[in-house]
């Protein structure tokens, strides 16, 4: 880091330093580690000061108030908690067991815009602690299936009721472009026509609401709750997450968003690199992974592992999500987001960019930058102390703070491991 940058960082953190000196309540100081605030340059032997669940200071010379709990991070790496921006965490336990699946609504004619997936969130899911133990502190829990899958929510991985966990709900509406079967139509063009018809109906519903209530409009293609749920999307205040892989599908989604004033987020984006300039021009972010390079469908023939790298070079905002291609990435292996980040680096993404892509970028894309995604005074104290480079496979998350607290309940995995590492007497027969 240049001297000028160090000074700038210290100045920027001055306010936090003052606040910290007047510390009260539960105060934790993570000291001595190499701090990657994401919102600013790396700090050697930095301190992250946390009080009452919030970051109050970050810097090289933060005064640790008396009575603060110290976490010694000497030789460790300190980063914001990781954000996995497309999961089914808390919405599914065992994928093959229907009664544990709460991420797919029945909907009407594949439209389920009013479906608030997080209403079915299971705070007792063992996968939540499992993800947290590997440094994931926030996720987007998103519905899947249909033409309009429903509403996604952002949650922090804290114990407690769903209402405690939720950062924002509804966060976004999830839609599909390119998968006709799932959308219950016969062809791509028909799918796009249905979406346009639906959005026209949302406008009618909103603009002629009194007529609608008197049943004085033509029949609309969705029910009132679904139409109402889509109103903020057409106002551009709630983003539309669109699953699209084929380059031409992405172009169609961009055109649709332009025509209806929609704030578009592309999810999947296997061939997004082919239309990177168009995405950059339209300021459309892409949620993608780095683990797939197989032409595994006719909609993703151009899938490649340096997708994120090429998109960033073109100026597209990239959020890395798990795309191992295996369904357990959405819950059981939400924790593997850092393998995606590391692999993206192996395929050309600068390391700092990869860290942003799993912290501040998802926060910014979903309008949560004032809550999570960086180590900056005023943000939620979602902080991880790593034994080394967080993307390396040998690295462990040694301390994970979510909203300023460590949650040290052993995971189910740890309990099983310990039980069988030394067999209990009753099992030694």
């Amino acid at each position, binding site marked *: 880091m240049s001297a000028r940058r160090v000074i700038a960082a210290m100045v920027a953190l001055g306010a936090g330093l003052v606040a910290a000196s007047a510390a009260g309540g539960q105060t934790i100081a993570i000291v001595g580690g190499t701090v990657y605030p994401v919102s600013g340059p790396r700090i050697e032997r930095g301190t992250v000061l946390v009080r009452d669940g919030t970051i109050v200071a970050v810097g090289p010379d933060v005064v640790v108030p008396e009575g603060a709990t110290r976490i010694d991070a000497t030789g460790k790496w300190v980063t914001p908690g990781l954000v996995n921006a497309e999961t089914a965490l808390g919405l599914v336990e*065992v994928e093959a067991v229907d009664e544990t699946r709460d991420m797919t609504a029945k909907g009407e004619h594949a439209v389920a815009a009013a479906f608030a997936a997080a209403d079915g969130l299971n705070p007792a899911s063992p996968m939540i602690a499992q993800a947290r133990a590997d440094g994931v502190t926030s996720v987007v829990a998103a519905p899947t299936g249909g033409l309009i899958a429903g509403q996604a929510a952002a949650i922090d991985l804290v114990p407690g009721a769903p209402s405690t966990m939720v950062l924002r709900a509804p966060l976004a509406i999830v839609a599909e472009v390119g998968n006709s079967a799932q959308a219950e139509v016969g062809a791509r063009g028909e799918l796009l026509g249905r979406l346009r018809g639906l959005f026209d109906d949302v406008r009618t519903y909103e603009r002629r609401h009194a007529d609608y209530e008197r049943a004085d409009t033509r029949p609309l293609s969705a029910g009132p709750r679904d139409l109402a749920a889509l109103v903020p999307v057409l106002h551009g205040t709630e983003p539309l997450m669109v699953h699209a892989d084929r380059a031409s599908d992405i172009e169609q989604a961009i055109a649709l968003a332009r025509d209806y004033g929609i704030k578009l987020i592309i999810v999947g984006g296997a061939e997004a690199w082919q239309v990177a300039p168009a995405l950059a021009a339209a300021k459309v972010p892409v949620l993608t992974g780095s683990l797939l390079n197989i032409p595994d469908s006719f909609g993703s*023939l151009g899938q490649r592992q340096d997708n994120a790298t090429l998109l960033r070079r073109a100026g597209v905002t990239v959020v890395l999500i798990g795309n191992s291609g295996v369904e357990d990435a959405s819950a059981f292996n939400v924790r593997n987001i850092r393998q995606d980040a590391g692999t993206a680096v192996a395929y050309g993404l600068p390391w700092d960019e990869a860290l942003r892509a799993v912290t501040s970028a998802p926060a910014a894309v979903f309008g949560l930058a004032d809550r999570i995604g960086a180590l900056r005074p005023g943000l939620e104290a979602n902080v991880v102390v790593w034994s080394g480079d967080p993307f390396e496979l040998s690295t462990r998350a040694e301390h994970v703070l979510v909203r300023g607290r460590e949650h040290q309940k052993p995971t189910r995995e740890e309990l099983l*491991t310990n039980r069988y590492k030394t067999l209990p007497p009753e099992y030694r027969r």
Partner: protein
Amino acid sequence: MINASILWARARRPAGWCAATVLGIGVAALAVACAPGSQRAGGTPGAPPAPARAAAASPGGAGPTPAPGPGALSVPNADPFPSTYTPFPSRVTVIQHATILTAAGPALHDASLLMRDGKVVAVGSQIAAPADAVVIDGTGKYVTPGIIDVHSHIGVYPAPGVAELANGNEATDPNTAYVWAEHSVWPEDPQFPRALAGGVTTMQILPGSANLFGGRSVVVKPVPSRSVQGMKFPGAKYGLKMACGENPKRVYQQRGPSTDMGNVAGYRRAWIQAEEYRRRWDKWNADHKGDPPSRDLGLETLAEVLRGNILVHMHCYRADEMAQMIDVAREFGYHIRAFHHAIEAYKIADLLAKNGIGAAEWADWGGFKMESFDAIRANLALTARAGAHAMIHSDDAAGAQRLNQEVAKAMAAGVAAGIPVTEDEAVKWMTINPAWALGLDGRIGSLEAGKDADVVLWSGTPFSVYAHAEKVWIDGALLFDRSDSAHQWRTDFELDYVPHAGVQR
């Protein structure tokens, strides 16, 4: 949709032997199939392969009517679909100054490896480069044996994952011991070159896990070929795919088996028939009296298992089911070579070790079915600690490309659980141990003089997320080079369809 196809694959899912001496029938054919390699004429790995010998046998198709082959009668070790693989052209090659994980002993630092005529000639620190050798500077790099994936469905569940190409599960009967996976393998599956680029040099292609008896596996090398015969690992034994648990029950819930006890009854009934079939044929083979007994393709495969000529690879998740399958095998006198997936191997690792059974595992997959709910990442470390043959496997064409990373995660989990795993041990999980599971540990899986020169040069430690396989040799021939597109095989399907690297619209 990726997820749907994977769930299908996992839900429903998730060799040849050169013993020509056995009966003296078809010796000539076997000798040709098993001859270690006249060089393939001309061509580069990037280009379509030169015509295989078999294809050129009868110009114009006007030859005499061939005599019945060895498959006309039920003959143990008949080889009706012989391998036509021969090594690709190779040059004498020396890699110098590398860290070499040999899988046969401690890591060698600043060491060299010499390959000639398809074999490893020498590994060590005092190796002079022959005058005609290609010399590769391995400073800062690692060398390992080629990775061996004992559980792959590449070729039988190809990309793109459309129904027309999905040939991995003959889900029409709970016992399809009569099918052979090689008859479903599509050599143009774009997943083959990708596995190769990940350092995989040998793979066992298995039928899926819909059935109690899924059929025969085939061991192949991921090399360009117009036919599966051109990929078959010469002299490798066949495997038999069997499956425990939820998949057969779900697929056959209407007609049965629909319960765990129905599954076990299904295995036992089949083995009773196989035992009788084997007796009948062994007798006829010994005395040739009267007409030969009727042939049955499925029972032929099972009888070969009972004779010890085909290795059993059994999809099984739960500890209690594995314990029961060990008893079934004992009842009928066969051996289970390895349990695959083996999510709960860690619960019975001592039992696996005692019975000499291997466990092929994922690093961290779990939670997708009830029987995978107890998955832990220390599974491989705990299995190895007990002394059982522990190995990684993919079951997935994406995972197959980074088995080194999967091993790294399993190593880290072992360390976290207080079971230190060295790189010397971990490399075995992806090389010599799976070689053992295929019965090929005498030929591949470690870097020792005399072994096949299946070698990977890594950009750094293969257990880093940042590592790439830079060069991959099979039988001493450079088949993949990350820095040279001439050594990056593209399948027919990909031509003008899968965009080249760097091409924007």
